């Protein structure tokens, strides 16, 4: 014997809600896609770090023992750690409403390696961001 409510629920689940309009997706893209300027900074930072690594390595090896050639550092790893979330005690804001501070911590690590000498250049960048989540009170 079949459950009539379950049959009805299954039928409801087959209905396909209409998706949001393209304007919504466009607005989300403006909010959530990284701006071109920020991407440019990242690329510039990465390029500068690579250049610095190469220059450092070059200085070390040219000034020291005679090597056959300068090291060639290659990007081997770029990773972001899982975000650690710390939910703090609610606070009262100036307007009388309540909010819960939430602190997020994560690290970005980028590594370059010279495959010939097996030496590595590592850039480690810890980040922390604190956000207030509004609390609804009825």
């Amino acid at each position, binding site marked *: 014997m079949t459950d009539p*409510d379950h049959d009805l629920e299954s039928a409801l*689940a087959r209905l396909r809600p209409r998706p949001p309009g393209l304007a919504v997706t466009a607005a*989300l893209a403006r909010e959530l896609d990284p701006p071109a300027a920020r991407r440019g900074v990242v690329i510039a930072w990465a390029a500068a770090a690579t250049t610095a690594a190469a220059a450092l390595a070059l200085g070390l090896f040219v000034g020291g023992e005679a090597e056959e050639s300068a090291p060639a550092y290659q990007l081997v790893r770029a990773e972001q750690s899982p975000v650690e979330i710390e*939910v703090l005690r609610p606070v009262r804001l100036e307007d009388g409403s309540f909010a819960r501070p939430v602190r997020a911590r994560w690290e970005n690590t980028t590594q370059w390696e010279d495959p010939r000498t097996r030496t590595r250049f590592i850039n480690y960048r810890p980040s922390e961001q604190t956000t207030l989540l509004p609390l609804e009170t009825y």
Partner: protein
Amino acid sequence: MSDAHADQDWRAWFAEHGARLRLIARQWTRSEADADDVVQEAFVRFWKHQRHLPGDPNALVVTSIRRAALDLLRRTDRRAAREKVVGDDSETVTWFEPEADPRLQALAQSLPLLPAEQREVVVLKVWGALTFDQIGEQLSISPNTAASRWRYAMEALRKLITARAHD
């Protein structure tokens, strides 16, 4: 619901879930345009600040939608009082894609006719994938009340479909 905690592209996640989020938003808004605004605001808040929080991402995004919808209702209530605006968008637009199956089509046309308090329970259970406990938390009612509204809604839907079949 696929994992929103992972380092996932928002476009892929929204393409998969946007339609049902909009249907949920529609339960607490007066028009299609308001539902779009609410989905947009709630999704940005969820994706930027909440998707890494512990807990069920599904419930988090529904909470975000409800909060945005209530905020919008409060703002528009104040504006309506000032401007004497009349004219709810009383649904000339359907909530669902057209269906070839007459039974499904009848269901799609019947759902908006349910009382709002039953309809929101149905939408949260079917398209929000929430349990009665979670629905109770969202709507500030007991799980038993949520389950009771569900049963009334199923009964009403059966009657509406039967009536349409005999028209």
